[in-house]
């Protein structure tokens, strides 16, 4: 069997038999009812979209805060004895320390 011939034959078959253009009855009316009803609200899709939109501003705020913190730490260097870890410890344990006193 010659594949090229079969290919040509099948294409000729497809050309010789174009699809019909009949439209189901009252399609226009159904379509207009759909259009006039308006788009269906998909709450989950809306929520996901909102999250995606929120991601960019969040990253921007994070970058701004990081930059600001870096600039501030460069302008006002902390004494070497008080490092960030120590400050974090003090802040987190402040409530415990107060209770102990």
């Amino acid at each position, binding site marked *: 069997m010659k594949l090229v011939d079969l290919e040509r034959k099948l294409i000729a078959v497809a050309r010789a038999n174009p699809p019909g253009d009949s*439209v189901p009855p009252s399609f226009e009316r159904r379509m207009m009812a759909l*259009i006039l009803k308006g788009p269906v609200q998909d709450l989950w899709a809306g929520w996901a979209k909102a999250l995606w939109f929120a991601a960019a501003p969040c990253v921007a705020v994070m970058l701004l805060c990081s930059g600001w913190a870096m600039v501030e730490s460069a302008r006002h260097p902390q004494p070497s004895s008080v490092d960030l870890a120590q400050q974090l410890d003090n802040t987190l344990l402040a409530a415990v320390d107060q209770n102990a006193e």
Partner: protein
Amino acid sequence: MERTEAELIAAVLKGDAASFEPLIEKYSPRVFATARRYARRESEIDDIAQEVWLKAYQKLGSFRGEAPFEHWLMRLAVRTCYDFLRSHQRNREAAFSDLSEAEDDWLERFVQQPGASPEDAEAAQQLVQRLLLNLSPAARLVITLLEIEDRSVKEISQLTGWSAPLVKVRAFRARAEMRKILAKVAKEKYL
């Protein structure tokens, strides 16, 4: 007096949704014919046509009126059909191994006398459907537009939004894909 297309479109854009109905009535046959090229069942055809008209209504504001409304609508229809093919590509039917008796007979007759096998036979049309179902979405779209509908590369480029070189590359790959499928049929049936 009957309103022109431009008047109907302007009315829809001003908020008179009912003016869209004559457009649906006029162009639905073309939309359905396009959908039938790519869908397998009547229910899918209906879904595609609905999607096309919903998109047309929602995007009507982007219609500039430089080209006829029909061209704009057909671009939308072809792109919707392509999206449909891509979203349903997992459901692509598998093989030519389960051919019906009539399809087998038609192929047998073609092997013996290629010119004698009728082009209008139901079995031949089913074979074409099988072949198209086995193609990837891009290959199916380009084969349908280029080979079956006999459109030019420029037209396909306008309809699909692909560049002309991309259409040529996809057409080359689509033909290769089609021959690979047919070679598999020949191997399964006649070797």
